[in-house]
């Protein structure tokens, strides 16, 4: 069964979703939770059987799909994708378990199960077209989630989300077709397999164009600074579960794709574009932090802070060294946990008051102490307090980029400190002071159902903040391989300089030991 565990992970939720049409409406949530729990157990099993010492792909699956055009169904995981897959199944599980009653909940749960299929498919695919299939397909359930269960502007928000991402990915598709064509020219065989593409060394001028095409698709998904305008709408209008999954998993597709495609395929172009992208990332960190400060709606604050942190992930990725990339992958997990939890927390208060305006609240710490505590913890994690999960990722990302540019890192570091200001202000407005609004006086504290989702997230936040090694180890292992590949493939002198030679470092260390 382990030979096909990835296929099972991908298609089990979809199959269960189809079967879900037969389930009675009343029992639907139990069914959804059960399916998602099985899926999560399977993903834990994947982790359990994952060999931490191997840096390459594991659990590979290969099936011919359209061999005459080089399209094959290839799956595999390494340390980079493993934890994102686990996170995707985890968030679907707690998302469904803590779902607050809504209209046509049956359709919602079936949609979520389909969404889970596409999410895991994206992170497990090792063929560009299979990747693209899941990448595009993930838009449809999300479109439906926002459009059918969202706020008053839901249709505008969902269509904007869809079209923005769809346009970007079509440009990326042209890039993929070019890449396959170059591979065909070099080898005489059509192939869309990523591992085949890794072996292809392109001249720098080609790399620049292809990098731009892929960047367009990924940057919209992340979303990076000039392309971010769809996200506040999507978050603002989406139901809680939609925002949670969007922030925790869907945005990670973009940053993950940078590491899976852009860096190893185009190392020279990555070095060439390092500074422009880093500057965009820093603008993204500072600008969205400032916008977040001006928001009146709690959910928008969380949404903009989430964009701001995505900037740090990008910065870490484009540090192009082991610390930076490992840090950014770890930060992807951390960001997923923390901003997912924050969106859940906003959902808790929205369910009670049906408003998200901060001016409506105040002094909630007296009324809902447990809620305030968990919110406080997540907020601290979000601003990057040491001993929380975010700190590890942010620190490593910045440490990585410090080796490329001191000044830019300093700017980014200051921006993160500024991030603390808006978060703490928001916390003050909501929780401290006297209870000013009579409606807030008798609000019930977090219920058991909500704790079911929040407590595991709090535990992970602290646990991985104190002891990140079980996750960081495998990530580091695979990242070293990627960086080494980039170093070997780089053609320009500049790129050889910027991308460190990992095995060289290891050899020199052992040489030193021998010297002693």
């Amino acid at each position: 069964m382990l030979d096909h565990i990835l296929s099972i992970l991908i298609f089990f939720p979809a199959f269960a979703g189809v079967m879900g049409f037969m389930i009675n409406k009343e029992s639907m949530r139990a069914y959804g939770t059960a399916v998602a729990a099985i899926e999560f157990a399977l993903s834990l099993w994947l982790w359990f059987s994952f060999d931490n010492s191997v840096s390459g792909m594991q659990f590979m699956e290969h099936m011919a799909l359209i061999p005459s055009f080089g399209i094959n169904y290839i799956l595999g995981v390494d340390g980079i994708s493993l934890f994102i897959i686990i996170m995707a199944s985890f968030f679907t599980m707690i998302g469904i378990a803590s779902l607050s009653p809504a209209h046509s909940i049956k359709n919602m749960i079936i949609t979520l199960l389909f969404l889970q299929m596409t999410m895991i498919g994206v992170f497990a695919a090792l063929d560009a077209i299979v990747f693209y299939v899941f990448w595009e397909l993930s838009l449809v359930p999300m479109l439906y989630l926002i459009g059918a269960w969202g706020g008053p502007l839901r249709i505008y928000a969902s269509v904007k989300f869809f079209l923005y991402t769809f346009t970007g990915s079509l440009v990326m598709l042209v890039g993929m077709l070019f890449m396959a064509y170059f591979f065909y020219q070099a080898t005489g065989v059509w192939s869309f397999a990523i591992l085949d593409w890794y072996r292809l060394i392109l001249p720098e001028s080609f790399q620049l164009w292809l990098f731009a095409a892929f960047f367009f698709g990924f940057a919209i998904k992340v979303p990076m600074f000039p392309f971010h305008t769809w996200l506040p709408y999507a978050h603002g209008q989406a139901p809680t579960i939609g925002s949670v999954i969007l922030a925790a998993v869907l945005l990670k597709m973009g940053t993950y794709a940078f590491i899976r495609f852009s860096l190893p395929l185009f190392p020279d172009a990555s070095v060439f574009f390092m500074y422009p992208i880093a500057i965009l990332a820093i603008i993204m960190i500072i600008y969205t932090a400032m916008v977040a400060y001006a928001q009146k709606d709690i959910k928008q604050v969380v949404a903009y802070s989430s964009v701001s942190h995505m900037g740090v992930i990008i910065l870490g990725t484009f540090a192009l060294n082991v610390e930076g990339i490992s840090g950014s992958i770890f930060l992807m997990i951390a960001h997923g946990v923390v901003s997912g939890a924050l969106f859940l927390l906003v959902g808790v208060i929205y369910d009670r008051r049906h408003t998200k305006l901060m001016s409506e609240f105040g002094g909630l710490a007296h009324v809902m102490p447990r809620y305030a505590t968990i919110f406080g913890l997540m907020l601290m994690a979000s601003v990057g307090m040491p001993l929380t999960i975010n700190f590890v990722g942010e620190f490593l990302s910045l440490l990585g980029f410090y080796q490329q540019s001191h000044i830019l890192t300093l700017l980014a570091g200051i921006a993160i400190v500024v991030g603390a200001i808006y978060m703490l202000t928001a916390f003050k407005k909501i929780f401290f002071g006297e209870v000013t609004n009579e409606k807030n006086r008798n609000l019930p504290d977090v219920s058991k159902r909500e704790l079911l989702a929040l407590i595991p997230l709090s535990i992970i936040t602290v646990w991985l903040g104190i002891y990140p090694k079980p996750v960081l180890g495998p990530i580091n292992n695979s990242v070293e391989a990627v960086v080494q590949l980039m170093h070997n493939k780089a053609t320009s002198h500049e790129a050889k300089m910027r991308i460190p030679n990992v095995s060289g470092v290891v050899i020199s260390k052992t040489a030193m030991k021998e010297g002693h």
Partner: protein
Amino acid sequence: MLSPVNVSLESLNLITLAPMLIPVIGALLILVIDIIKGGLDKSLYVVLSILFLALDFGALLESAGVFSKEGIMLGVFDVMLIDGLAIISQFIIVVTSMLFIPLALTNKRFHEFSYPEFFALFLFMIAGFQFMVASDNLILIFVGLETASLALYTLIAMHNRDKSFEAAVKYFTMGALAAGFYSFGSMVFYALTGSIEINQIAAVLEANNYADIGFVLVGVVMMLGSFGFKLSVVPFHTWTPDVYEGSSAAMAGYMSIVPKIAAFVVAMRLFEFLIHAHIVWLEVVLYALVVITMTAANMWAIVQTDVKRMLAYSSISHAGFVMAAILIGTTQSNSALFLYWILFSFTNLGAFSMLWISRQKELPGYQKTDHSFEKFSGMIKTSPMAAIIMGLFMLSLAGLPPFALFWGKIYMISSAVTGGYTVLALIMALNSAIAGYYYLKLIVFMFMKDPIESNVDNNGQLYVANATTALKTIIGFAIIGTVFAFVALDSLLEFVTAFVYNSGY
């Protein structure tokens, strides 16, 4: 003194005529049955048509087998030309027709299907299209084109509503103009080369190295105008939305597929050698036509308020997309054309059939046209199955993976990439994004809006009012073709590529 004509029967190779003669015989049989005993039910004629089309399909399999062994066949004084293009396009024509004709078995009674002449004309039309694609003789192509077109005009008019007459007359007038262009273009080519066989024309022009390029261009302009009308290329498209609106949804779906593949094949035979001769003017004009057709049709489709008109513009846009194959002119692009059209025919027939089963006889107040967007609002709540199926067809038309048209799209864009048309590839990709908007609009109406009161009351009966088992079966075929296209894709691609390559395109 005239010498006696002495032609041996074998040299005529009459077997090449078999696939065309079968539907002709079928049509005559239907007429004879009607003369002997009138007033028979439409189901008889539907089944008879299917049977003859099945025989036709068998004959095609036979010629496909011969072609893969012996290569291109000529017959009947070398007028007939059975090559890979002819065979694949006839497969598309016959299979689509077989899927179309059961749509006559509706729940409600429609005027046109009570006449046996409808089915006779339908079979004559198929024979006409088959002649059109299986020849490189300009006169036979013309005869096939007119046989098919005249039959089609009548089929549209038989729908018997005011709009249908308007549509038929409009189509007829435009078609007559196109026929005029065609005959004038053929005349110019004949005057230039003394031949009406496309390969002879190509050879003569090649031999004198395009000395009379001015006249060649006049001929090309005429031909472009003529095929522009038939393929509804912008700016010759004006008839399309009106004609689609006037004809029944089933007929409109059929018209968006079969006449166009026939015209594509002729256009491929006619323009490809000119493209390969590097006539820059033609390349520029074709490039502009392709881009304008794709983009402008997409823009118009966005502002439509009726689903059928929206689909009409979308089919113009798809035709423009596929026209790119003729411009690129490589084996890969020509195979992509056929692959795209096969996948498109499943999806589009499905989409139009979904409109067809929701066809009402009287329109309620909130609906201005037969298939206005409002009609579909909140469909997921009243009839979820139909909404999901319609949604699937829309996603496929938008080119979302893994549904059928996505594969056609990537193969086509890939052929632009390999053919060196980078900018065109980008324009094609971005046009798919624009198109996404209007397909999404229907999905938004179906899945995100609230249903109209009267539809809630009758439990979504409206959307399947016209459905029968036969229609549902056809939609089932369309869904399987749309969703599971990737299973058959590899063998399909190999088959198409081999046939196109072996015909020298």
